[in-house]
């Protein structure tokens, strides 16, 4: 008798457990779907609105599908914005910065990872400490210095500093170098390779994963930079995409022309999204190693 009631109690608690499990799963996926919509909706809306006629973008309640697909929004937006010029300028800055970052950061990281020298750990600690220095403190003297040497309205202030290493990328790269077995280097040394040969022919090929992460972070950094180009580039022919987009949307009469504004935004976002989907794994890795944004 008691055995039967115990069994039915167990059965009851089992079905109860299953029920809570199912409810938990439904709740879980419900939250995930909701949060996905929260994150994606603004971008999807941007994309759809960029094809809508002007009357539709001011409508409430909000509409999602263009009543008439109007790709002219893009060509209209481009009339007020030298897209070609700003795109070229952004590419120049991004590519040079990329090479500067990769070159200097791998060198420095290798120095910290593979050589013993006095004050090495103290210097590395200083490197980490510079990560905490607010940009606002450096802004004015650096600006004044560039002004003094005539670098305002050139790309140099946006490119040259990248050739002197970035503390964060150096940190990532050093971690990676530390993981490479010493035997490989010793073998190369016994073969009589010079330090620089070991660096370029042994370490660099092995460090490809770390270099890709740095390349992506550097690309994102230059492509998205706003404050730098804003203060250093006054000549419209030198403007970057970020500044071009900002200037376009703040033109008089642009207030409320959301379809063109969204079209212009899509043009700036697209290259980044393409790179993101091509190198998703590395983006996530980069974020894992960072969390420095915003």
């Amino acid at each position, binding site marked *: 008798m008691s055995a039967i009631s115990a069994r039915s109690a167990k059965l009851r608690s089992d079905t109860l457990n299953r029920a809570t499990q199912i409810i938990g799963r439904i709740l*879980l996926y419900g939250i995930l779907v909701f*949060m*996905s919509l929260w*994150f*994606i909706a*603004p*971008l999807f*809306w941007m994309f759809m609105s960029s094809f809508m006629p002007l009357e539709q*973008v*001011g409508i*409430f*309640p*909000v509409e999602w599908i263009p009543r008439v697909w109007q790709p002219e929004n893009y060509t209209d937006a481009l009339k007020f914005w030298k897209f070609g010029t700003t795109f070229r300028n952004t590419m120049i800055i991004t590519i040079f910065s990329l090479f500067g970052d990769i070159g200097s950061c791998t*060198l*420095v990281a290798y*120095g910290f990872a593979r050589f*013993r*020298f*006095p004050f*090495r*750990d103290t210097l*590395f*600690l200083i*490197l*980490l400490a510079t990560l*905490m*220095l*607010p940009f*606002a*403190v*450096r*802004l*004015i*003297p*650096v*600006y*004044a210095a560039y*002004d003094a040497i005539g670098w305002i309205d050139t790309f140099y202030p946006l490119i040259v500093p990248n*050739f*002197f290493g970035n503390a964060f990328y150096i940190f990532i790269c050093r*971690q990676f170098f530390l993981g490479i077995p010493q035997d490989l280097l010793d073998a190369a040394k016994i073969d009589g390779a010079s330090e620089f040969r070991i*660096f370029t022919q042994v370490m660099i090929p092995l460090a490809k994963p770390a270099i890709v992460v740095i390349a992506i972070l550097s690309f994102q950094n230059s492509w*998205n930079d*706003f*404050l730098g180009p804003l203060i250093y580039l006054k000549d419209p022919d030198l403007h970057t995409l*970020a500044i071009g*987009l900002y200037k376009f*949307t703040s033109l008089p009469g642009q207030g409320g022309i959301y379809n063109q504004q*969204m079209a212009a*935004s899509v043009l*700036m*976002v697209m290259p*980044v999204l393409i790179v*993101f989907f091509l190198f998703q794994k590395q983006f996530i890795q980069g*974020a*894992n190693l*960072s*969390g420095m*944004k*915003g």
Partner: protein
Amino acid sequence: MATAFGSQFSALRGRRRERWSDLSPMRKREAKFGFLFIAPWFIGVLLFALFPFIASFVLSFTKYNIVAPPEWVGIEHYEHIFTDDPLFLKSLKNTAVYVGGSVAIRILLGFGLALLLNTKVRFLGLWRTLFYVPSVVPIVALSIVWLYVLNARAGLLNWFLGFFGISRIRWFADPDFAMLAFLIMSTTWVGVTMVIFLAGLQGIPEEYYDAAKIDGANMAQRLWRVTIPLMTPTIYLNVLINIIGAFQVFTQVFIMTGGAPRDATRTYVLHLFDHAFQYLPPQMGYSSALAWILFMIIFAFTAVIVASSQRWVFYQGAED
């Protein structure tokens, strides 16, 4: 990474300093190459960190407009800031709201979502991508999109809130809501924090949970006694990085409101930027003083967090 940061500091303790003259010729050669390799960074740190760091301190005691040489004024700027600049306090308050709100959002929501994704969900990669995508969008484009999202008349957010019976909010016309709008917008970057937490969670060995289960720990206890203690290095690093970043919030505010309405969204760095680059003549000296006060505030916060970390951050395998 979090652990790497921690171990970096402990590595310094108790190490004997080597003298140059004690080094063997081979070690000297090695050291020379070491210095050679790190030279670019070393020059860079002098030019782009140490020089501006000191120079901005000196400039903060001067009147400086770029065109004419700086003119010494002593502590006049600091006096003015603390006694006669209502926007200093206002912008500091706005920034404090942003720091508190956005860091809480990023840590709590980021951690919560990472926990959900760490429960053997299906399509993990898909969810992670969807949560992460908005944070790769360039901030200028993002600001323009969010101006539209936050539009009082036709915006997406007011449409969404309508389902909960909330009538249209005039986000950037109402000083009570303007800063809240930026906090809502800051959810955009939750994906970054989430990805970092998720990587940390995936690194916790399954055996710990099995052991806890055998001991009869329920889900809440496992979270509180196993997951969170093991995650403290990651939480620590994220709190630190996000606080330092949030104190410097600038671009979206500059683009979207410029501090309006009635300075309700004037953040600290915006205030500082306006003095240096918007007002005529430029007040670079005053701006430097503001920058140094910001540095001191951030430094104090960092110091308190780093000091407190010994009480609440646990490193696996640490001896003490």
